[in-house]
């Protein structure tokens, strides 16, 4: 029998630190994509189980045992928490995404170099779909930095590109002191 060994998307690649920025992997217990049908009364079981309504576009909300993140037109990700039986398009995407946390005082400078959003103006729990380099990404602003999700197949590229920018920002910081 072949013995399969489960590996996380960024295993062996993170954590990484450069200057005032840190990059580490986040491993959600589960990631469930949720696309509701037009009739919003069908979402009642979700509200009962998680204790919150779906967030507005560009927002995420804390829920019981996890959170709900807006991820696009009529699409949400439920992180960590278990989604109850629901009349909606629900898919398990736990193994499909790489998720990292970018923190430290230089996190905003790093994002400014690699993302077309005006990240400095995002507030905690705000969400945007945008680009990291050329990769489509989900970007969540946290109190201490950013959480970034990309397709799992891009994990290595994500770490490579972000860590390269972290190095550049650290070098620029060292030059100007």
């Amino acid at each position, binding site marked *: 029998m072949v013995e399969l060994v489960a590996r996380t998307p960024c295993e062996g690649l993170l954590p990484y630190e450069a200057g005032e920025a840190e990059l580490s992997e986040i491993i959600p217990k589960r990631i469930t994509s949720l696309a509701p049908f037009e009739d919003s009364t069908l979402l009642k079981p979700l509200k009962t189980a998680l204790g919150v309504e779906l967030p507005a*576009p*560009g927002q995420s909300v804390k829920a019981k045992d996890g959170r709900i993140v807006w991820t*696009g*037109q009529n*699409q949400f990700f439920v992180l960590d928490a278990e989604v109850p039986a629901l009349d909606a398009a629900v898919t398990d995407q736990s193994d499909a995404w790489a998720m990292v946390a970018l923190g430290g005082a230089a996190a905003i400078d790093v994002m400014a170099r690699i993302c*077309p*959003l005006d990240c400095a103006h995002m507030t905690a729990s705000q969400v*945007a*779909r*945008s*680009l990291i380099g050329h990769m*489509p990404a989900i970007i969540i602003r946290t109190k201490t930095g950013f959480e970034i999700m990309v397709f799992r197949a891009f994990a290595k590229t994500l770490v490579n590109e972000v860590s390269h920018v972290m190095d550049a920002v650290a070098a620029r910081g060292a030059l100007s002191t």
Partner: protein
Amino acid sequence: MRLTCPICGDRDRREFYYLGAADYLDRPVEGEAEATHRYLHLRDNPAGVTRDLWQHEAGCAAWLVVERNVTTHEILQVSLAKDEIRDAR
């Protein structure tokens, strides 16, 4: 160039994919050869205001109708394609 997505707000052009004239929303009745020919091949090419289909590909994924002036580069309006279709019905 920046476009204001009705869902995501003001965003950089590189997040968007361009498809072509918004005429693609008005599908002809199946079997009408002349209308299909017009739908696929005949386009006005005004030096002025055009209506095009764009997708917020790296954003919320919504299809958008963008009204812009190709001589002044002014963006006049951005709306959700699904709303435009709904209004037309």
